[in-house]
């Protein structure tokens, strides 16, 4: 790659990314609420109660999107890791480290809501079911990446090491998932779940899809906020951050006057 372009991506990107992300945030928030409010209303009010599980199935509208997102975030991170390692794009590294806590939170939410759902349905907070176990392993992989990043003082090295580990993880995740499924079928009688119905009623499906879309915008929203925060934190001594602070101060002084 041309050295100037490379330099631009390394150093220049925050200059346009920071204000652009600032402009996008209100729009993404609006889209998030646009899907969240009808999704929650339909999910909690208009969707019919399940004939077996009664009202408690409604936790699905948080549980399932969170579980989907925990995986989607990882794949987004893996793509960013390739970009970071091949083209040395710094913004991709920022994107990964900003995504890790979000993905870990989604995995944790999926596990906690799963426990709350499991207690009335299975009679236990936790069962060593294949999906639960691989979700837990995914959470640990997220936490491992976070621990590795935080262990480095130099954030440039940290970004590279983290990208490599993310890629190692994406190769291993399918292997881990299928071996856990295999382990589960071998060691346990299949857990009887009320959820394994072949189809889901359309009135229940629509709020689920709305919530899943809302969660995607939620991820985007938190990601933009986190990326901005991480950029400011890392570049605290560089010119463009100082300029932003000065502009803010000027604005406040004017307001006082």
């Amino acid at each position, binding site marked *: 790659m041309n050295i100037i372009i490379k330099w631009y991506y390394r150093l220049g990107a925050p200059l346009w990314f920071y204000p652009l992300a600032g402009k996008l945030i209100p729009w993404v928030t609006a889209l998030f609420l646009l899907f969240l409010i009808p999704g929650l209303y339909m999910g909690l009010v208009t969707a019919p109660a399940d004939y077996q599980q009664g009202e408690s199935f409604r936790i699905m509208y948080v549980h399932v999107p969170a579980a989907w997102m925990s995986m989607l975030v990882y794949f987004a991170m893996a793509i960013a890791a390739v970009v970071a390692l091949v083209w040395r794009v710094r913004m991709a590294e920022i994107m990964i480290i900003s995504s890790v806590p979000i993905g870990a939170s989604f995995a944790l939410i999926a596990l906690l809501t799963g426990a709350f759902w499991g207690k009335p349905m299975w009679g236990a907070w936790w069962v060593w079911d294949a999906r639960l176990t691989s979700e837990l392993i995914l959470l640990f992989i997220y936490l491992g990446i976070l621990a590795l990043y935080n262990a480095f003082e130099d954030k440039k090295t940290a970004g*590279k090491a983290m990208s490599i580990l993310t890629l*190692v993880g994406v190769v291993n995740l399918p292997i881990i998932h299928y071996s856990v499924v295999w382990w589960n079928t071998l060691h346990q009688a299949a857990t009887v779940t009320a959820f394994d119905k072949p189809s889901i009623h359309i009135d229940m499906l629509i709020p689920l899809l709305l919530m899943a879309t809302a969660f995607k915008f939620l991820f985007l929203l938190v990601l933009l906020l986190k990326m901005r925060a991480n950029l400011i934190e890392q570049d605290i001594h560089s010119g463009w951050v100082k300029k932003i602070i000065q502009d803010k101060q000027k604005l406040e002084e004017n307001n006082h006057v």
Partner: protein
Amino acid sequence: MNTFLTLIKRDLVLAYRGRGEAFNSLIFFGLVILLFPIGISASEKLLSEIAPGLIWIAALLATMLSLDNLFKEDFQDGTLEQWAVSQHSLISFAWARLFSHWVITSVPLIIIAPLFALSLSLPTDAIGVLIVSLLLGTPLLTFIGGIGVALTTGLKKSSMLLPLLVLPFYIPVLIFGASAVDVAADGWSASGQLYILAGLFVLGITLAPFAVATSLKVSVSQ
């Protein structure tokens, strides 16, 4: 190829001269196994039931902990840096180092494992499968663990970090390794598990050195 053999020979000679160290992970392996009858129960029936998983977990922990100083000395005295700037590939360096490390620490462990298996009253029919599963599994543990070690080599304090990075990726190996022995102890054929383990073995020893070499490059350029 020549440099590769030289590297392995150098590592083996060095290990032979400092023989004491190679025993450390063996002693650790024995101690971990000793903890289970004391902590859980010395009942023969229970022990023979949990023996496959127990031996595998002990082998896994012993392998992982032995990895800690895999590249540390070479990193500190600059050998690694010389390798990185020389015309030789870091991949073959990583491969040779991982392989000789496996020979030094895991082979004695595999030789001694049947003794511990007998002390836990694992059925004698399962011992052959135990050895084969360890032969296929421990190189994988070394090679996957090598990625974690290479990533943390440049760090000053990394002792708690390595298990966090590596253990999630050890899970498939543990599942198939322990299950192969478990199935053999119940008198069934363990070939399915061993085939999958062999597949993972091939995947691990071909792909992991690339990740190790890239991570080493990152650690050196720090």
